[in-house]
């Protein structure tokens, strides 16, 4: 028996009935999210939905539509209206055509138990997180998500995949501080609310009663959340081939733009990775080195940017990619050989930063970003943490921060870390950097 999503794809292609080239993607999602604040669950949600995405092309005229209605009449209406839109569109001179048949990697990113995770199972993880911080206020979420995707096109290319993800992400708060804990995996059984909660509670306890520090340039030890944010900004605004083709990227290929200690790649086939192994155009996601030993080596492509560049797509098309360009969602930053304690021990005077907050690009080409610290910032002197400090604002070029000679140490324990672009996107270690430009304190 066919996968029901594949059947749906075939029904839609049957309704197109040769009147245009077409590609169909059907996505079923089951999600549950247990949200807590003030140490109790206040919002507990679930969703089961199916969406059909259709793209048609007729002699270079292209149109796309999506619907959550999957009845016969609704699918017919979807097809007919998309074909009508197609007729009205001008010829797209850069239309790259639909993906040809290709083999998709067989990845094991689906866990049946996580797919079936109950609200009670998630609530039990919340209970453990909350209990790990007695006397503190906990807030955050535990979620479980599964997606089943089928793709089919008139080129004969078909693909199916399933994936799951589970995350615990939360903070413990005292009256003057907060600390964060985060864990993400394919399997809910891999994450541990008690351990994650204990990390958050320890940071909140050590961060209590912070005092101000003068803004300025400091050496920093950045926890994985910070490094993940840097990596995702470099990916979205730099290694995105659309940004590159339009001259808005900082990337200079085959050039030593970063410190030799910095390497970054995208690899959905990694056993730790999340998600499905093909992109929204059906193209298999190819493992890709973006930075090797500090040298910028490759861009991520969808079919449109690949055609303009005369190369093959790397399989990084995303929803809305015509506007935003391709994006890597399985990014790994190379770990090093030091523990966080060892990174701190090498700092004469600097700051340990656990998380960035609200980062925004001032200029994509220079990667100057402003943001703040959050959930634990500590002054380090002569190799030891001496006191917590209040949150700081920074205005810093992410490229310059990783420039040759700037990465002084890399942590050995990499993990999935939260970043501005969602969870499970970047797997990153901690990192010690020579300088970071803090431009303001919590009071201005």
């Amino acid at each position, binding site marked *: 028996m066919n996968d029901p999503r594949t059947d749906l794809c075939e029904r839609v292609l049957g309704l197109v009935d040769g009147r245009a080239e077409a590609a169909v993607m059907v996505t079923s999602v089951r999600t549950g999210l247990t949200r807590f604040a003030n140490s109790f*669950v206040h919002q*507990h949600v679930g*969703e089961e939905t199916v969406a059909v995405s259709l793209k048609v092309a007729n002699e270079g005229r292209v149109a*796309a539509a*999506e619907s959550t209605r999957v009845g016969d009449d609704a699918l017919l209406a979807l097809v007919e209206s998309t074909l009508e839109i197609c007729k009205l569109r001008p010829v797209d001179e850069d239309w790259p055509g639909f993906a040809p048949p290709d083999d998709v990697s067989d990845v094991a990113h689906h866990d049946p138990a996580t797919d079936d995770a109950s609200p009670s199972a998630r609530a039990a993880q919340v209970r453990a997180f909350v209990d790990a911080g007695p006397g503190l206020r906990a*807030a955050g979420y535990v979620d479980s998500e599964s997606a089943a995707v089928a793709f089919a096109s008139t080129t004969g290319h078909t693909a199916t995949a399933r994936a799951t993800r589970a995350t615990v992400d939360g903070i413990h708060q005292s009256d003057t501080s907060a600390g964060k804990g985060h864990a993400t995996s394919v399997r809910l059984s891999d994450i541990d609310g008690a351990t994650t909660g204990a990390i958050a509670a320890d940071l909140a306890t050590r961060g209590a009663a912070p005092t101000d520090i003068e803004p300025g340039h400091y050496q920093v030890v950045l926890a994985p959340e910070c490094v993940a944010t840097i990596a995702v900004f470099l990916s979205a605004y730099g290694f995105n081939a659309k940004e590159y083709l339009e001259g808005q990227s900082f990337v200079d290929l085959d050039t030593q733009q970063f410190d030799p200690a910095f390497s970054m790649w995208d690899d959905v086939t990694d056993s730790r990775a999340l998600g499905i192994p093909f992109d929204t155009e059906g193209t298999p996601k190819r493992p890709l080195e973006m930075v090797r030993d500090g040298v910028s080596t490759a861009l991520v492509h969808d079919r449109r940017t690949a055609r303009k560049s005369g190369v093959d797509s790397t399989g990084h098309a995303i929803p809305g990619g015509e506007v935003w360009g391709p994006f890597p969602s399985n990014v790994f930053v190379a770990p090093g050989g030091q523990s966080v304690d060892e990174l701190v021990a090498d700092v004469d005077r600097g700051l340990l930063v656990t998380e960035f907050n609200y980062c*925004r690009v001032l200029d994509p080409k220079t990667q100057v970003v402003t943001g703040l610290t959050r959930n634990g910032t500590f002054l380090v002197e002569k190799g030891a943490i001496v006191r917590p400090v209040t949150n700081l604002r920074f205005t810093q070029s992410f490229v310059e921060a990783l420039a040759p000679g700037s990465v002084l140490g890399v942590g050995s324990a990499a993990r999935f870390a939260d970043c501005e672009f969602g969870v499970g996107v970047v797997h990153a270690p901690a990192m010690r950097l020579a300088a970071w430009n803090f*431009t303001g304190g919590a009071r201005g």
Partner: protein
Amino acid sequence: MFDFAQRAVEAALAAGATYADARAMVTREESLEARNGSLESAERSERAGLGVRALIGSSWGFFATNDLTDAAATRAGETAAHTAQASATVAGPDLVLADVPVRQDHYETPHAEDPFAIALSEKADLLVGVTETMQAVDGVAVARAGLSFWDTEKFFVSSQGHRISQHLVEAGGGMDATSMSETESQRRSYPQSFGHFETGGYEVVRRFDLPGNAGRVAEEAVALVTAPECPAGETTLILESSQVALQIHESVGHATELDRILGWEAAFAGTSFLDLAQLGTLTYGSPLMNIVADATLPRALATFGYDDEGTPAQRVDIVREGIWVGVLSGRDSAHIAGLPPGGMVRGDGFNRLPMVRMTNVGLVPGDSSLDEMIAATDDGVYMATNRSWSIDDKRLNFQFGTEVAWEIKNGKLGRMLRNPTYTGITPQFWGTLDMLGGPAETIPWGLPNCGKGQPMQTGHTGHMAPPARFVGVRVGVRG
């Protein structure tokens, strides 16, 4: 559609909910994007489904499905209640809903031209044409333009007897031109950097006059590349009205959301520097500062008949003559605070739990004008159109960048400046407000991209904003 919602509510009650409501929704969206003389994308989507909310003890349970059948509606109601019950292992104080009038009603956005009935070719020609105009200006590297339209039908039923249907129509868009130097890029946008959106039909877009502004936008983008950098220091700052709108959004709107004040968003969006004990006494800004949240304002993007709890749209004072006097609230949060519910709870589609959302949060106009502000400034900077925005998790420490600035010397606009930024602390900054534009220069700016909640929701908010002058502001912060 009412029947599906009613069936879900009854199932939730039967499964143990003390209160339940449901929204059956159909949302159609159309978006078009053009770049450098080509139509880059034209997409339509339709999202239809049912979302059910069930209250048990201290927790909401919520479940959504796109399966619009009787059986699925019943299962959705039951699942919402069972999900709420599962929260009992980590329980807190029971949630109680503040009273609101129970209504059976229909509301429709006033609109003249159905945006979905306008030929796609007319919209495409408009966007392609303005990108061609911008790109024809020597030095423009990227010219973009886009339009988006939403048509939403909502059918709301509650276990208290609400039965409300609404038909909301929203429209808008914008354009921008980007120029490059060897080391950086510069951009100018119109009407504002995220596009401008209102409730209404295609007449919203016709009012923009995109063709009439394309050439100016492109020329300013090119001029920025060679403009001197905004100097660093402390100075008098005049903000153009769309930047005032974002300043309100980030440093007043989010800060006065009651769910943030109560700690419900602490882990993600953050909390607020405000403490309910200070309501009615805290000085938020200068006496010129009067902020209202008004969901009844004609044309504004966050205007509706009822929020997603069935509470009628209303106007609420938030800051009066510089004193903090009000919050953005829903039925549960208002009861905790002992305040009347503000009708400000909305969800991003049928599959998201409604939460406190800004309505049209904006400034009551003053009696000055941009020209008068400039004339009254010996030495200062005029900044226009947002380019970057960042604020801390208590909504205190902010830094904004704008696309362009002009220096002000001896009461006159001078040189164009590039890379302008300014930074401040919320109440201190608003305390320096000393001149405010009048009604003629007050625009109900609409933002379609406000992120909040987990799972993430995108909200549509409005912000009435005149140009405004602030004194002693730190500008020119760069890396």
